[in-house]
Each structure stands twice: as structure tokens, then as C-alpha cells.
């Protein structure tokens, strides 16, 4: 039993931190700019592909730094020449714009890199087993992901809460006129925020592409779960996203690791297998686990629409 719990906690934490890397950019963009970026997962995918391509020339470590910057630049261009024009028409056109953008990016990626997964592999330096727990190896790369995400969170937190730039960014959202009057270039601040958000997604892609599979479908499969994290954590809250990611990671892993069903909890009550509701009664947690995050999403929206640490309703 202890074994199961330890496994779930560690695996859940590792998965959760990866989720955080993908969703922090989204929550940042929403929190600062009020733009619900449907194309966020596409920037995540771009990060993986850029890192793969750049890495072939420069090696992994330079690609790790360069790819997010490139993705951030793409994000800046999108904001400057796309989103900014659409912005004046309100939030719905913005939403539709990013929605369309997601498809465009997906198609471009399959156009340039093909539809078959690319062999994007981890660097040899990290390709070893770091430690072994109950016969289960943990590779150095997994711990590396953990490290990157922690560093990312700390940097982001300091940038937003402790620096002047962070104050300007936050002020630009709530009082753009005032910030503008004080001599700050508000549109440029927005562009910067969008670029940082995209770069964070790109960074997630650089490591996520190795951990998972780098293929044109990766954005579509990652899209929904990222939104769950953001809603659960509270739109716009970076610490909230962190906590939500870990909760989802651990909860999902735990549900997968134990055999639980209503039937096994209430073992005294007999329900006939022919009964219409017996499916629910005998449903094992392992089959339920993948829907759990979405169940959480629905429950959050009903009972606590502002999420764990959000400041306003979703």
C-alpha cells in the first residue's frame, strides 16, 4: 500500500509539473490580457518541433534555450499583427482568431515536418537512471523536467510580483489608460506578455516533446487538459495553476494505481449485474481516471467558478 502511495505521489508530481509548464503560459496570457488563447497548445507543439530542428544543428542544450525564444518571437508577431487588430472588436473575435490560428499552425506543422512523428530524443547526458524506487527506475530526464518547471515557476513568480516590469504588466490590465498616461507603451506590454506566455508553452514543448511524442496531433491531444488546469487553478493565477497541475497529476495517478469501485467500497450491498446502473456500480477507478480532470472541470465551474486561487469568475 505504501508502495502504491509513494508511486502515485512521485509519478503524479512529475506529470503535474509537466502540466504546469504547459498551462502557466495560458493562465498568464488570460490573467494579464483577458485573451483565452485556444492556440496555446499549438505553441507548445511549435516548441517541440523548433527544439527538434534546432537541436539537430546545435545540440539539445542550445535548443532548450533557443526554441522558447523562437516560439516567443512567433507569439509576438501573432500578437502585433493579428491579435492587436482583432482586439478592438472584443473578446469573441479574439477567441475565434486563436481558434482558427490553432488549425493554421497544425496544418503548417504537418506541411513542414510531415505527419509522421519525428525522432526527437533526449540528450545522452540525461539518458540514464537517476535512482530506483521499489524496482521502478526514474530517469534523470524526468527529474530534469521537474527542475526546469520549478525554476520556471520561481522566475515567473519573481517577475510578476517582485519586479517593476511585473507591476507595469499587472497595472496595464486593470488600468491601461493610467499606465499609458504614465508614459508606458501599453500595446508593447501586451505584446511582451503574449510572447512570454507563448515562450513558456514552447519551453513545455521542448521537454514535453521528448517525454511524449512529437507529432502534429500533439497539440490537439494536449489542448483540453491545459484548460482544465487553468480553470481549476483560477484564470490568471500562476500559483493556482501550479497547485491545480499537481492536484490533477496526483489524483489521476492515484486513481490509476488502486483498484476501487463503488462495489468494492460498499461491499455489503449486492447490485445485480443486469441492473442498468451496474456499469456505474462496478466501474473501476482505473477506467474512470482519464475522465477525472474533466469531472473536476465541471465541478469547479459549478461550485467554485473562480477556481482555487482566481480573483474573478471564469
Amino acid at each position, binding site marked *: 500500500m505504501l*508502495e*502504491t502511495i509513494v*508511486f*502515485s505521489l512521485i*509519478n503524479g508530481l*512529475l*506529470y503535474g509539473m*509537466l502540466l504546469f509548464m504547459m498551462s502557466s503560459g495560458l493562465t498568464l496570457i488570460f490573467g494579464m490580457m483577458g485573451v483565452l488563447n485556444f492556440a496555446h497548445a499549438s505553441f507548445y507543439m511549435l516548441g517541440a518541433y523548433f527544439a527538434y530542428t534546432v537541436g539537430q544543428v546545435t545540440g539539445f542544450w542550445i535548443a532548450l534555450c533557443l526554441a522558447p525564444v523562437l516560439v516567443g518571437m512567433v507569439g509576438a508577431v501573432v500578437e502585433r499583427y493579428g491579435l492587436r487588430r482583432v482586439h478592438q472588436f472584443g473578446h469573441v473575435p479574439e477567441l475565434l482568431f486563436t481558434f482558427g490560428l490553432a488549425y493554421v499552425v497544425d496544418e503548417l506543422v*504537418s506541411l513542414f515536418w*510531415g*505527419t*509522421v*512523428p*519525428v*525522432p526527437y*530524443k533526449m540528450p545522452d547526458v540525461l539518458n540514464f*537512471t537517476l535512482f*530506483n524506487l*521499489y*524496482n*521502478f*527506475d*526514474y*530517469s534523470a*530526464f*524526468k527529474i530534469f523536467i521537474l527542475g526546469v518547471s520549478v525554476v520556471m515557476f520561481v522566475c515567473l513568480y519573481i517577475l510578476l510580483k517582485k519586479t517593476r516590469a511585473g507591476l507595469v504588466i499587472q497595472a496595464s490590465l486593470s488600468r491601461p489608460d493610467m499606465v499609458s498616461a504614465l508614459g508606458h507603451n501599453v500595446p508593447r506590454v501586451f505584446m511582451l506578455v503574449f510572447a512570454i506566455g507563448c515562450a513558456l508553452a514552447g519551453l513545455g514543448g521542448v521537454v514535453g516533446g521528448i517525454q*511524449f*511524442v512529437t*507529432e*502534429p*496531433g500533439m497539440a*490537439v*491531444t*494536449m489542448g483540453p*487538459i491545459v484548460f482544465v488546469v487553468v480553470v481549476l487553478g483560477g484564470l490568471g493565477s500562476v500559483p493556482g495553476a501550479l497547485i491545480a497541475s499537481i492536484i490533477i497529476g496526483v489524483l*489521476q*495517478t492515484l486513481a*490509476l*494505481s488502486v483498484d476501487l469501485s463503488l462495489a468494492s467500497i460498499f461491499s455489503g450491498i449486492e447490485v445485480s449485474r443486469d441492473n442498468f446502473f451496474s456499469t456505474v456500480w462496478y466501474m473501476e477507478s*482505473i*477506467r474512470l481516471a*482519464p*475522465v477525472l480532470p474533466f469531472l473536476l472541470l465541471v465541478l469547479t465551474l459549478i461550485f467554485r467558478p473562480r477556481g482555487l486561487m482566481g480573483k474573478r469568475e471564469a
Partner: protein
Amino acid sequence: MTNKKRTGIIAGALIGLSAMLAPQGYAADGPIRIAYIEPLSGAFANVGDAGLKHFRFAAEKINEAGGVLGRKFEIVPMDNKQSASESVQLVQRAADEDIPFITQGNGSNVAGALVEAVDRNNRRNSDHKIVYLNYAAVDPALTNERCSFYHFRFDANSEIKLEVITNYMATQKDIKKVFLINQDYSHGQFISKTAKTMLKEKRPDVEIVGDVLHPIGQVRDFAPYVARIQQSGADSVITGNWGNDLSLLVRAADSAGLDVKFYTYYGGGLGTPAVVGDRGEGKLLQITEWQSNAKVNQEHPDYEQWMNEFKQRYPDIDWYYHRVYNEMYMLKAAIEKAGSTDADAVAKALEGMTFDSITGKVTMRAADHQLIQPMYISVMDSNVVHDVDNSGFGFTTLAQIPADQATAPTTCEMKRP
């Protein structure tokens, strides 16, 4: 008045234009068209695209050699977006365009819908009957309780594959504990159920230590599943997973240092070897109707050349679907025997047909339209002539199972016209 006149002229021009654009009647000497109904966009686009390349290549080869009855094959790609309902509409479109053959393979749910749609069309629309050639959907029901006269399957069905896998496992004395992990839909559920009964019969001493179903295409992190396999103490895993569900599983297993053998349906499938890489060597087994390093290729240098030519043209992928070869050449033979592309006549000609394939004699069993063919069990290996996906790894044959042993009974009660 002038306004009305102008509208009239425009309308007339449009009618004329649409008449010009409308498909010319495909006369008896035009190309023989085969509608290829597969996902050409979305998450499974890579699989659909690779299949299309296979069919186009085979069609071109046949056309170069003189075609069929002096006519040429033409593959008409139709995007079904991996949806059963879209596919049913495409059957209608094929019938409207007078296309006599459709082919599809990805997803038994789609295949099931297609069988019904084709049957319905052939009942109601006797001028435009359609034959459905299935090259990959392996749900046994399609050649058992749901069998149809107009459906022909060129891949071994799931039951046959499991029969072969369990026969092979029965000879492997070091197997003690088996874990089943499959996708949670008809395909995976069937494997989970049948593997248990077959193993119990053939190797009562083997213990089934786990049986897990996971949702298809949604799991990103397989670590918890792998932890379960680890804790169960299994030495072998049977999985019908395909695509990323398989790649991610094998990857996670390797990263966790799990030392088990994976008995898979699609381990050599499009895209998987590149992702698995050296992690699969000696561990990843597959069951197929053929594989690129099979010995039989050496006796058929022309087929070797076929593969190389395919690789040259499409460097990203490899010639993988031998069944496309079987399907196209058997269709050619059937059309020649029938003397036309009439669906009833071609279906009758295909029924019971034997064909000398590269792998040996293959037979389209008349009772249920299931192709009975030799099967191969092979394992991932770096020391091979042909690698897959440019990964440096290919497959080495472990066992070749003759056609008469790669079979399973059928309950099909065929209704013939």
C-alpha cells in the same frame, strides 16, 4: 427588365459551367476507381496518408504493367476524419459517382458502419453496387455475426492473430505471468477477453496478473500503468494498442526499467518504431502478415525492388502493408475473371479465390470473406537489412506460421444475392 435579363444570363452561364465541371460519365474504358476512405486530416492523418501512398503505389505498378482489362486503376482519396458517420456519407458519394470499390481499414467502428452502409446501398441502389475491401479493421464480428457478401478482409482478424500469438506463447516456457493492457473499445475489449480464455486453454500454468483497459488516444503519461505492470511481476505483456498509445506505453516501460516482452499487433506500425527506438530491441514483438525482413523476400527480388522503389519515393515511410499488395492484385484477378467491374460478379470471383502471394498461397475463405494467409511473429532488432522509419531498427522473424495454422472458425451465415 435588364436586371432580370442579366440574372438570366448569369444563371445560364452557371448552369453551363456546372455541366462542364460535372464528372464526365466514367465509361467502360475509363479508369477503374477505388474510393480510399480514411482520415486524411486530424490526429490520425499520418496513418491515412501512409495508406494512401501504399495504394497509389500499388495501383501505379499495376497500371505500368498494362492495367486491368486494358483499363487503369485510380485511387480516389476521401477524408472520413476517422468518423463513422462521415464514412457512411462517403459511401453515398462513391455510389453517386459510380465508384464500384471502396477500401478502408482504420477503426473497426468505422468498418462496421461501412459494412452496413454498403449493404444498404446495394439493396436499394442496384445500379451502383459497391464492394468493400477492408485492409486493416480486425474486429472478428465483421467476418462472423456481422459478415456481408460485399465485405472482404485482407488482414488477419483479431481472433486469428491472438490464436497465433497464444500458440507461440505456449511454446515459450519462460513465460510465467502475463499482463494485458488494451484500449477501451471493441478491439481492446475483445483482446482482453479472448486472450484470457485462450491462454487458460493452452498454458493453464500461466498466470494472468493484470488486465487493464485505458481510453483510446487520451493517455499521455503511461508511468502509472507501467508501475502496475511492475508491481504485478509480469514477464510478458499482450497489447493491441496502436499509434501513440503503443509508443508511449513502450517508452514509459523502458524509462522505468521494466524488463518485459511486449506482444503487440502493431509494434512495427507506421510511426511507432521511430518513437520507440532502441528501447524496443529484443522486447517489442509484433504479429503481421509479412515483414520487410522476412526470408521470403529473398526469393522475390522483384518485391525487394518494389520496397526499395517505394522507399525512394517516400523516404519518410516504408512499405508496410503487404495486404495492400494482396488486395490490389486479388482485385485485379477478380475483375479479370468477372470480365467487368460489376460488384456482384467481382464479389463472386473474389470469394474463395486463391492467390500466390509473396508469403505463399493465400485464400479468401468463401464462408466469411476472411483472407487466410501465413503469419509472422517478429521482434525488433538492430541487425537487419531493412530498418523501419529510418530508425536503424527493423524486425527479425521469430516464427513463421503457415496459413493452415493461422486460422479461426467462423459463425458467418452469408446471405448471397
